[in-house]
Structure formats: structure tokens, C-alpha cells
């Protein structure tokens, strides 16, 4: 019990010192961001976002009034940001066109995923934005120790950690010269994470395993599950749970035979608004687990240890922390300690 307390104390201390240490940003500011060097002569007055995580990070920093357009929405905006979000134009639910972003003449484009602005950028490449004088910032969670050219969703060379989320928040805060707010947001994320970890530690879990099922291309087909280095893997690792999947890919395809044989203690299924495949619906996932002749025999299904989690928390975003909280609470509720 001493370790978490100590960590908590350290976090509080970090919070205090951070508050004391935060200084105004000195412009021109130069940052290394996902392989590109970006420079700001002053704080951006306006910004367009590509990716919900980037949007919500800016809202959390109290920068909603600087956002002139948003895009790439996966789910509803967090309730605490609804009022500000309602006032901001949504350029596109999915990928915005290059021109719609440029037309806003933003001082910055803040991006969640490399694949929107990477070498094969769907919206445009970063160079194209830079050519028209618009700097781009990509959330480091999608590029630090991650090769986006390998595997469909990229492959991580090192495990994801919420450190990269904190880094993204801090760097955005620095760009906009709101560093005090940045430290406050990070301290809150750290504290929430540590509280959740402490709740799980108190359960004294032994040999608990899990699998994250995101979706499947067709109902009975091999599912997309979380690899061992992404956001979900981080949650499991922090809470002392073993991931049964051993792939470095972000969302590898793994057969039900392998999953059933591994027989995880818990199954976490994604809830999302997307309805492209039948299995996007978490009710359909539940139905499959309960009716499939093999999947229904798994311990997790027989003992009803199925946790429903918001899909956006499974991506590497600020919401990862909510995911850790949901999972920690579920561990308590499911009474797995016994």
C-alpha cells in the first residue's frame, strides 16, 4: 500500500512544483513534432482540428474559443465540452477536404492521427499545409515509438504510455502559451490514473487475463483485438492484467480459436456509434459471445465478466484515462479478487 500512496504524494508534489514552475512561452517557439520541426512566432489565434482527440485536448485546455473548425468525430463530444462545441463549425464528421481546412485560414492545424496528414495523408500531407504557411501539430501519442507504415493501424516499437498524452497536452499548452492550464490538466490526468490503479491494486489480483474486442469485419469472422503495445495494453499493464494477445500491431486480427484457447478472465468490448459492420454494435458482440458454440464456453462469458467500454477510450487519447477508470471499477464490481 505504501507505493501508491508515495506515488500519489509525488504526483501532488509534481502538481505543486509544476504550478510554481510554469513560465510564459518564449516565442519564437520551435518544437520537434513527429519528425518535423515546427516554429511559432506567436500563439496561434485560430486553429482547425482533424481528429476528436486533438479537439478535446484543446477544449480541456480552455482553448475552445480559438477553434474555428473541427473534423473526424468518432463519438459524441465529452459532456463538459458540449456547450462550447455546439458553437463551433464541424467541417466534416469524417475526413475534411484539404480546401475546407485551408479556407478557415487557421494559424495551426491540430491532428490526432498521422494517417490524415502523413506521407499518404488522406486530408493532405504536412508539407502541403506548410507550403501554404499553416503549421501542423500531430498528437505525439500517434507517432512516438510508432511506425505508421507497418500494419494497417501502425505498429508500435515501444509500449504506449499516457506520458505521450501528457506530452501532447503540455506541448499544445506551450504553443498557445497556457502552460499553467496545461500542467493543471496533466496533473488531473495523472491523479485520476493513479487513483484507478490504486483501486485495482487493493484487489490484489492474481493471474487475471483479458482481451479487448474492438469489432469484426463480419459477425463470425476473426475479430480485431487490441495488440500488446497500444492504449488498451497500457490499461491492462497498469492494472496488473495480462493481455492474451501477443502482437505489436495496434489492432491485429486474431482467430476465435486462439482467443477461446487462451480463455481470458475478462472480455472488454467496444461500444461505438459507428455502424459499418454488424459487430460495431456492442449488443451484437454480446449476442455473439453468448450464442457462439465456442466463445460461449469461455470463462469470461460463462461468468458474465464482460466489460463494455467506450471505443474512443481504446485509442491513445486523453480518454485512455477514463478507460482505466472504467476497467478498474469493473474489476471491483465483478468481484474478481475472489
Amino acid at each position, binding site marked *: 500500500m505504501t507505493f501508491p500512496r508515495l506515488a500519489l504524494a509525488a504526483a501532488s508534489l509534481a502538481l505543486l512544483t509544476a504550478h510554481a514552475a510554469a513560465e510564459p512561452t518564449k516565442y519564437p517557439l520551435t518544437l520537434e513534432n513527429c519528425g518535423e520541426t515546427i516554429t511559432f512566432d506567436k500563439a496561434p489565434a485560430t486553429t482547425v482540428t482533424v481528429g476528436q482527440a486533438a479537439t478535446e485536448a484543446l477544449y480541456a485546455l480552455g482553448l475552445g474559443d480559438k477553434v474555428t473548425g473541427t473534423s473526424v468525430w468518432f463519438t459524441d463530444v465529452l459532456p463538459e465540452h458540449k456547450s462550447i462545441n455546439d458553437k463551433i463549425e464541424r467541417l466534416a464528421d469524417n475526413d475534411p477536404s484539404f480546401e475546407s481546412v485551408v479556407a478557415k485560414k487557421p494559424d495551426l492545424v491540430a491532428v490526432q492521427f498521422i494517417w490524415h496528414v502523413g506521407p499518404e495523408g488522406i486530408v493532405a500531407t504536412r508539407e502541403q499545409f506548410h507550403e501554404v504557411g499553416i503549421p501542423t501539430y500531430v498528437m505525439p501519442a500517434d507517432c512516438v515509438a510508432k511506425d505508421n507504415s507497418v500494419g494497417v493501424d501502425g505498429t508500435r516499437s515501444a509500449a504506449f504510455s499516457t506520458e505521450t498524452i501528457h506530452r501532447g497536452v503540455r506541448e499544445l499548452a506551450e504553443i498557445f502559451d497556457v502552460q499553467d492550464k496545461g500542467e493543471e490538466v496533466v496533473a488531473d490526468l495523472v491523479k485520476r490514473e493513479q487513483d484507478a490503479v490504486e483501486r485495482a491494486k487493493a484487489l490484489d489480483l492474481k493471474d487475471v487475463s483479458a482481451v479487448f474486442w474492438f469489432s469484426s469485419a463480419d459477425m463470425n469472422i476473426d475479430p480485431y483485438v487490441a495488440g500488446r503495445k497500444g492504449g488498451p495494453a497500457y490499461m491492462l499493464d497498469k492494472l496488473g492484467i495480462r493481455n492474451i494477445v501477443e502482437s505489436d500491431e495496434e489492432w491485429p*486480427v486474431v482467430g476465435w480459436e486462439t482467443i477461446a484457447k487462451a480463455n481470458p478472465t475478462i472480455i472488454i468490448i467496444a461500444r461505438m456509434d459507428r455502424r459499418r459492420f454488424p459487430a460495431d454494435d456492442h449488443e451484437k458482440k454480446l449476442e455473439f459471445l453468448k450464442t457462439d458454440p465456442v466463445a460461449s464456453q469461455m470463462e469470461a462469458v460463462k461468468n458474465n465478466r464482460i466489460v463494455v467500454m467506450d471505443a474512443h477510450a481504446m485509442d491513445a487519447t486523453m480518454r485512455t484515462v477514463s478507460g482505466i477508470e472504467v476497467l478498474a471499477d469493473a474489476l471491483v464490481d465483478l468481484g474478481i479478487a475472489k
Partner: protein
Amino acid sequence: MARLWWRWPAGIVVLAATVFAGTCIGETAIPLSVVVQTLANKVLGAAYPLDPIDMGIVWNYRLPRALVAASCGAGLALSGLVLQSLLRNALADPYLLGISAGASTGAVTVTIAGIGGGAVSMSLGAFAGALTAFLLVALLARAAGGGVSARGTGQIILAGIAGSQLFNALTSFIITKSANAEQARGIMFWLLGNLSGVRWPDVTLAVPVATIGLVTCVWYARALDAFAFGAESAASLGIPVRTVQTVLIGLTALVTAVMVSIVGSIGFVGLVIPHAARFVVGVRHGRLVPATALTGAAFLIAADVLSRTMIPGQVLPIGVITALVGAPAFALILLKGRRRP
């Protein structure tokens, strides 16, 4: 024919052995004794105490997969054989009729464009797309004066190419218009062929369709022999050319559409297997038809096993395996064929 009768039971034994091997080998290690006991429990009503997960994997995942793989392999190979013989074109394969392209369009329409709102499954969309494409190709060939008539077998090949191009373009259009990278990959995985979603209901569809295909081809074996010298020679031998062509090409379209809707489009089986079988048993369809069906069945079971075991804990699309094996095999056939006078 008396000399040949034993080949049928021998073929069935080989097929059963391949299916059994497909049931024994999978992503995870399940002891042979467990597989045998599971089969005894399910088929003979024995009551060996077994882990329900092991039993389920063998009976509900692996056996249906092996049976469907066998049916698809046989069905696609036979379709290829029929088209190669009827059209007298060594490069003919079932996807020539635009069926694969149409299936892709159907699948994409359902999943990406969202027609059906999630209620229509991808495989149903693929089936509808496959048949639509074939009908279009058949109509075009007929309008071009060829179709399935005695003279212009070239027209159906050209019509098939046009149809494939059209439907591939439609697929690309839908993907570009309304999908992002993340959406497209689910489709691509499925389109390259995948047997992981196969369960018993698929067996009850695939096995009868493959059986009908086999029986029909055996029935028309002599007619197919006659087509080797062209439709006109076949007609002079008293073969009802138009009927045979219509029945067999229609059968090919149906078999292929059903198989594609169950497992996605698996390339090269329809093209390569008939050639491989010809090397072994010669050109007479009395032997060639069963040999092609058997080789196709065994090949696809093996490809499926490979696709699931090559990368431990992860699955490769089966189409990648069939092409990896199929392309070099086809090259070999080409080289060997060149040496022949």
C-alpha cells in the same frame, strides 16, 4: 470404365483424410486424441469427458472450415475447368465472368455505403453483387452476338473483362467516396478471402452446391470432351451445344457466386488447379472432372491451414497463400507447356 471404378472410393478416402488433417491442424495445439474423441462424441454418440472449448474448436470451428474449404476448392476448380474447356481458353477462370468484381462491389455497397443499415450481411451483398455482375456480362456478351452461342466464345471473355473493369471501378469509387483507410481495410481483408467466419450453416450451403457442381460436370463429361475440338465439332457429334453451354456457364456462375459470398474471392484456384489436374490424369473429362474437384478441395484445405499457422497467433488472408503458391505453380505450367510441341 470398369478399370476406373475404384478411383471413386479412393478419392473419397483421400478427401476424408484431407478434411481430417484440416481438423487436426489449427492455430492452437489440440492433441490428436482430443480430435478423435470429439469426433467420436459427436458422430458416434460417445461420451468422452472433454474440455468444452477444445471440443467446440474441433467441431464448430475446424471441421466446418475444412468442409467448406473442400467445397470451395472443388467448386472453384470445377468452374475453372468448365470455362477453360467450353471457351477453349487456357486462361479462363471463374472470376473472368466478372463475378469476383461484382461480389466486391456488393460487399462494399453493404458495408461502406451503408445500404441495408447493418441488417444485410456482407456475404449477402457479395452474392447479390456477383449475380448482378454475371447477368450484366452475359447480357453484354449476348448483345455482342457471342454470349453462349456456338460461334463467339471470345465475346464472353471480352464482356467479362469489361464487366470486371466496370465493377472494380465502382468498388474504388465507393471506397474513395465514403470510406477512410480504417474502413477500407476490413473490406480488403474479407475480399482477399477468409474462412474464419465459417460455421455449420455455411456447410449446409457449400457442400450441396459443390456436390451439384460435381455431379453436373460428371454428367456432361463427354460433352466437355467434345468441346475440345470446338463447338461446331461438338454439334456434329450430336451434343446440344447451346443447352450444354447455358447449363454449364450458369452453373459456374452460381457455384462461384455462392463460394465467393461465403469465403470472399480466393484467386488462382479456378485457374491453376485444372491445369495441375490435367498434368496428372490427362485431358479426358471422365477422369479430369473428379481429379480437378479432389485437387481443388485438398489444395484449399492446405492453404487454409497454412494461412492460420504461418504467423503464430495471427491470420493471413487465404488469398495471399493461394496466390503465393498459385503464381509460381502457374509459371511452372507455362514453362512446361512451352517444351511440349
